[in-house]
């Protein structure tokens, strides 16, 4: 049984770091895992997608999630979440950040940011939870830890054996960032409980 997690958002939000933590956590749990993303030009403030596929008991072939088969989506920005909703399964679970990042095309090319972005995601039939990760990270005093808050929320859906999540955070993050991110991780778990 392969679990497919799609992480989506905007370049600079720490999506690749988050997907690396998730992948390392799977490895440390002794699971099969593959992760795929794109570096280079697309990362300059553009849309970013990362695909993580894992299985406790089998092989993963394709590094890309088959179309429409993401069982879990972690959306770090509402518009990007809406853009990728068709890549999720009809019964997918979606965790979506509420804070918007307005693309430059809105200012310069006459596009408008859809006011009903969250309503459209909520109305998609998926199991959707809106998460104020950016706000919670700011309250923790470390706005850059919003990605770890999202991972904390994800950890309530992906139960890895032992302390794999914590070991992965310690492995991937810079030592000086570990404490605040462990705090952020727990804050993300709490956000899911209070929901």
């Amino acid at each position, binding site marked *: 049984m392969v679990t497919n997690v799609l992480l989506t958002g905007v370049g600079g939000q720490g999506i690749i770091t988050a997907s690396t933590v998730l992948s390392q956590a799977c490895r440390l749990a002794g699971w099969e895992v593959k992760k795929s993303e794109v570096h280079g030009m697309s990362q300059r403030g*553009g849309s970013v997608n990362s695909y993580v596929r894992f299985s406790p008991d089998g092989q993963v072939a394709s590094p890309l999630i088959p*179309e*429409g088969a993401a069982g879990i989506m972690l959306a770090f920005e509402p518009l990007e979440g809406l853009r990728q909703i068709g890549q999720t399964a009809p019964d997918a679970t979606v965790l979506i950040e509420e804070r918007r990042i307005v693309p430059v095309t809105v200012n310069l090319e006459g596009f408008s940011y859809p006011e009903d972005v969250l309503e459209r995601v909520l109305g998609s039939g998926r199991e959707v939870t809106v998460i104020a990760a950016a706000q919670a990270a700011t309250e923790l005093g470390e706005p850059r830890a919003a990605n770890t808050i999202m991972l904390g929320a994800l950890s309530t859906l992906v139960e890895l054996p032992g302390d794999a999540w914590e070991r992965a955070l310690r492995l991937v993050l810079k030592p000086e960032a570990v404490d605040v991110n462990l705090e952020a991780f727990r804050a993300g778990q709490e956000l899911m409980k209070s929901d």
Partner: protein
Amino acid sequence: MAETAKRASDVLLLSGNEAIARGAWEAGVRLGSGYPGTPSSEILPALKELGGVYVEWSVNEKVALEVAAGASIAGARALVTMKHVGLNVAADPLFTLSYTGVGGGLVIVTADDPSMHSSQNEQDNRNYARAAKVPMLQPADSQEARDLTMQAFELSERFDVPVLVRPVTRISHSDGLVEVGERQDVEPAGELEPCPEKYVMIPAHARRRRVAMAERTRKLLAFAEETELNREEMGDSSLGIIAAGVAHQYAKEAFPTASFLKLGLVWPLPADRIRAFAEELERLCVVEELDPYLTEQVMALGVEVEPVDDRFRIGELTPGRVREMITGERPPEGEPDEDLPPRPPTLCPGCPHRSVFVALRKLGAYVTGDIGCYTLGTLPPLEAVHTCLCMGAGIGEAHGIQKIRGHEAPVVAVIGDSTFTHSGITGLVNIAYNAGVSTAVILDNRTTAMTGGQVHPGVGETLSGMPGRELDFARLARAIGIEDVRVVDPYDMAATEGALREAMASPEPSVVIARRECVLTVRERAPVPELDVETCIRCGQCIRIGCPALSGVDDGGERPLPQIDPALCTGCLMCAQVCPVDALKAPEGSGEGNA
């Protein structure tokens, strides 16, 4: 994240690039060279981290391959890395290295980029293997990236031939589990003795080597028939698929019970095994990205292959596209998103290139561009880059345009510092030599930014950490014969515009060096400017410099009010400099930044 654990029993999570570095390291590689290029850039830094190997960023791919050829002649195993278009630059040495063969094993990584995630084309470099008559291995995941790189060194030495390893973006930038081993200690073999009939390709020698190559190809063909690099995976006889690399993974995902001939060696191909595989099956499909490279060779054997629609020859495959290719069944469509604002890549907030493009646009320049972040200057609102062809091309193009349109034509070449050292210098020599008058702007941000911030000769630091000699662009331009050389700080927009105006008006060839460190490598940030709402006339000038930190908010006024996102702003103050009424200013006496 690179991991450096070296115990034999370890299973590591490695990207394809890290796994290639690991394979080369375990194979006892002594020298790694290359030029950064997505998706290949992480291989050499990973090799450096593993330690014990001399590594360098060479000035371009041709030089990198020649350096590695030297190491190979000296008896050591050598690795060269580049992106697909880099092999065009290195093609000259490649084709004749196939004649000379190698001393120590020589492995060339060409990382292809189907779908052009970060490239100007999506050429299929499998064609190089056939054209140069050198073996090519194609890994299908990170484990194979390590394993095949190790085997590439063995093949290189066994058959006296450089060997190509071709990952694609979805191998280079995908992570997977890799079982690793220890490093072999491979000492350079023998003395450095002249062997002109092997290494001096005068026609008399080359003609003999050409015959030896044909004999080598016969041996490689026999090897392809027996090697476990190619693998039959027999399943249902109703559908057989021939595939290599990541395309095999997509096909396996889409048709888990089909029969597969999985090719690890994609040149030369095993004719007998292909025929034998085809005989077992009701339907035979070839699944491959880009050119019909395998398809045409399989069909040339007289084997019947199901036709594939041409649209599958463009861009990356996916599991859904492979299914559609074979069954006609379309993958599930996403919801229509035509009304969603696109989010293209942009120049970063605080990018020093921005002011050069603002000025060039104002001056009405026709700008011949080049390869790097600054190519994004072609997008709205700057729209100030009018060509992008290949590394170094902008300088030659500017010269050619001016030879046709005259000296007064407002043509300016822009080129990054790393790209300039890669292949801009020769173009500049050409302008000086051929009585050109063009203006070349070197966007000197002290790094190779697009590919992740690699060092280069203009910086003076080296990948190995040893100090290098810093290339002085101004002195170089003067040595070439260009006297009109100006150095400006692009954060000073008036000075930048003035220098460009004068250089363009000059009857001589000229060089403007716009020097300011890349905003991604500078840690400290200046205070965010404050907007005086009373003074602001909502003219939109600041928004039209295209800074992602600036947006217009509708507050009920006649036109949108500028708003700065403090999380993105770096305090470069370009917005303040274009404001006609001084409504944007650095906060007075404030020492606070947003770091």
